[in-house]
């Protein structure tokens, strides 16, 4: 179990979510096991004991502007990010201000974590639960980080800084947290693969590189390769950097329902392949692409659920943006006609789908999309920055 604790602890640090040395992970079976710095361990053990759950993550986010997210909320104790991960899975994020700390802090934390998958604590960090496994605590920790990141940068675009201190925090973020996006070395394969073993290996490698490049968070994202009459696709809930044994071969003739464990975006992948033939599809949640997809200039729009129902294909630079929800009746039908020509498309508030004749093309399209969106964000916010 300690191996697993160390694994997710270092993963949160490597992902850029947790400050190095400020991530604590906890499990509880007939005893509590934990790794992390002493001050976080003490608090976390008390919370997990009260909750009675199998797992907990507690970490200080590696975002210099983290506390500003809370400070910007004028009333209430909840932030409601509008990205798709939050809308679907987190719903909202409760928080506690530093000024609200008292002798009942543990009780309060336990109460809040009894209702939601994760919470924010000012001047402390993010706490998330794993109702079933330690991996869940990690996934929730990563998702919350993603939601906070997207919300802050969106709000910044719309409202600007509220203090000089915040401006300094943001510059710190640009200079130290944001890393240049880079290609895998050695490069991904460029040929069209047909041997299943080669396909499994390259899918596994491409998934890892996508995570390494910070183009997807936690267990979101998916990847597939179509060869002949079979789509090889990552399983639902599989981490892209841990795909060994988590790839389903799904025959196109529907002769078996074993694909029930395939990614929830299987339908989107199938419809895309109907447009492009054999190839590779990669889906990630790169943050700036998501942020840019949520910036719409149409001030006359009356559509209340634009993230789901917007009929217009917008663009960020030359990357098309469509609306649509995850799963049945959602984004699948909207993506496929658009991606056929562009090889990439951003789904409002959700993520990026790219396609290519091979793994290298699909990855390259994802990387270039995020580079373009990152550049566009800072271009539009140059007066803020």
């Amino acid at each position, binding site marked *: 179990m300690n191996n697993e604790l160390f694994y997710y602890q270092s993963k949160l640090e490597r992902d850029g979510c947790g400050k190095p040395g400020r991530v604590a992970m906890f499990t509880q079976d007939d005893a509590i096991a934990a790794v992390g710095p002493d001050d976080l361990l003490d608090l976390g053990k008390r919370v997990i004991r009260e909750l009675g759950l199998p797992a907990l993550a507690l970490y200080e986010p590696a975002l210099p502007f983290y506390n500003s997210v809370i400070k910007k909320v004028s009333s209430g104790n909840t932030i409601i990010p509008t990205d798709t991960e939050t809308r679907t899975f987190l719903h909202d994020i409760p928080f506690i201000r530093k000024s609200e700390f008292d002798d009942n802090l543990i009780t309060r934390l336990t109460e809040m974590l009894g209702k939601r998958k994760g919470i924010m604590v000012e001047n402390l960090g993010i706490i998330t639960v794993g*109702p079933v496994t330690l991996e869940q605590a990690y996934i929730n920790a990563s998702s919350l980080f993603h939601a906070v990141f997207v919300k802050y940068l969106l709000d910044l675009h719309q409202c600007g800084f509220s203090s000089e201190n915040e401006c300094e925090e943001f510059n710190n973020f640009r200079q130290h947290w944001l890393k240049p996006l880079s290609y895998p070395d050695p490069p991904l394969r460029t040929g069209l693969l047909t041997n299943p073993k080669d396909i499994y290996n390259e899918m596994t490698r491409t998934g890892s590189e996508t995570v390494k490049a910070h183009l997807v968070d936690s267990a979101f994202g998916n990847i597939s390769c179509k060869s002949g009459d079979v789509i090889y696709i990552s399983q639902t809930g599989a981490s892209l950097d841990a795909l060994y044994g988590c790839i389903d071969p799904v025959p196109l003739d529907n002769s078996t329902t074993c694909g029930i464990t395939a990614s929830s975006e299987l339908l989107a992948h199938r419809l895309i392949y109907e447009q492009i033939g054999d190839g590779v599809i990669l889906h990630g949640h790169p943050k700036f692409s998501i942020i840019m997809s949520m910036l719409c200039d149409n001030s006359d729009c009356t559509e209340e659920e634009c993230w789901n129902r917007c009929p217009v294909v917008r663009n960020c630079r030359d990357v098309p943006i469509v609306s649509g929800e995850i799963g049945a009746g959602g984004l699948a039908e909207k993506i496929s006609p658009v991606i056929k020509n562009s090889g990439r498309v951003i789904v409002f508030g959700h993520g990026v789908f790219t396609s290519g004749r091979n793994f290298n093309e699909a990855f390259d399209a994802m990387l270039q999309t995020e580079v373009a969106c990152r550049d566009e964000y800072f271009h539009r916010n140059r007066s803020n920055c």
Partner: protein
Amino acid sequence: MNGWHGRLLVIDLTTRTCRTESLSHNRLLTFLGGRGLAVELFQDYAHLDPFSADIPLIFTTGPLSGSGTPASERLCILSRSPLTGTLFDTTAGGSFAYTLKTTGHDGLFISGTSDRPVALRIQPSGIEFLEADSLWGKTTSETIAAFTACSVAAIGPAGENRVLYANIVFSDGDNDGRGGLGAVMGAKNLKAIAVEGDCLTTIAEPFKLELAQQKILRLFRASPAIMGPFGLHEYGTPTFIDLTNQRQMLPTRNFKATHFYGAKDLSGPAIRNALSPQHDSCHDCFIACKKRGGDNQRLPEYSALSHFGPLLNICNLQSVIDANTACREMGLDAISAASTLATQGEITGTFPNPDALKKILSQISHRHKEAKSLSLGSRRLAGESGHPEASMTVKSLELPAFDPRGAIGIALSYCTSSLGGSHVRGHMESSEILRKPVAIDRFSFSGKGRLLKIAEDAHAAYDSMMVCPNAFYAASLEEYAEAVSAVTGHDYSPADLSQIGEKIVNTEQRINRRNGFSVDDDMLPARFFQEKGTSEDNLTLPPLDKNAFSAELLRYYRVRNLDN
């Protein structure tokens, strides 16, 4: 009162009288409804013989019924099982729960024994005790057809003849799941219950409920298991045949093997190609996992397909469908019936001929001389035959359609379940097989005791809100806590619901202990620790490690505070 009516209809079949008992708000807030409320009502009668006049047969609905919350129109039926001797509750879908609640009652408490066959018609204005001599002996569909413009619960010949695994069958084709509660109903000479009404469920905060419903539906749409191209909406539960076979945990030839050569002939795609089934659903359900054939016949669920198929070495789809239909007509539990036949098949060396199944099932239901032992269930049959090792049961309940060697959590759940060998207390297949809410290693023991305890508590809460277990391949207590809070006006957190569930499970365990069950009964048949499963595609299914299994069971008891 929001969410509930606060009324229980108490019926005495001996005196043919009834009264309305008030259910206090506090009691309902504490036990929610469904399974929780039924267990609460049953406690003082739990020691009685299942066929005694005084033992109640309890039907309960949940606070979400009638609110429009997705997948929340299930019914709980509870009594003591004549098959297992345990406290036994089952749930049923369809529309009976919704309609029962429109009579203005949250549940029915039926005790006594009628001196002659009787049927009940229940409406908001009152109850009629109808003579049912002319219905006695009829199949369930013939009985149901005798009533119009209402929902009906009926027993068939199996219940009348007190076959130990007789079912109760409902007018939209659903039946209660296992345990012989149809026999309890038959022992009371109660042939049918018809309900109709127009009382509505009031909702405390409709806008909050709408938001909660949207969250739930969003998760349903995003779930491959529910709305995906191979999910329950598309194929129904038969979608699991291919998956469990591929995972080498499809029970085959009385659990002598775990992979079946003919599974593809019984799979979801096979059914679709042969019959082009139509969608069907419980009342107002988005998932619509039920399927009907061309003649409007309700098609088998996964468990019936598995047990009348691979478990009996049968790969003829029509034979399996016909056997399932026969069970419904006779009012027999398909799992127990097929398992008992499989036990006999192993003992005699001859599994039943597929063409003979209908006749055998009728003989069992009528307790004909040649099938009398079969009517007692697998354990008693095996015992009488001198081959107890051939019975795949826990606490006399025949194991369902997941071979325990294929998933440790499922294996443990068969032992800890207060019903006996059933997976429905913890639904560990959700995470061990379907990867929801998160994938866990099905072959690992690590932490499974605690995980099972958490799952059991959660499902006890779901069963008390009367939410369909299929919903939890996508949603969780988090979303349904918001729904039940909005309906009732009481602020429930997921942790609150989990605590209610824990209380219910612990109560059930205590009831069973008082009735003589002990940890010695919480164990799988020896086969699973001695024989390996089928090896295919480089996957070997070893026997379970008994020491590790027992250790994890002990850990479960410790986590549940049952080790004293």
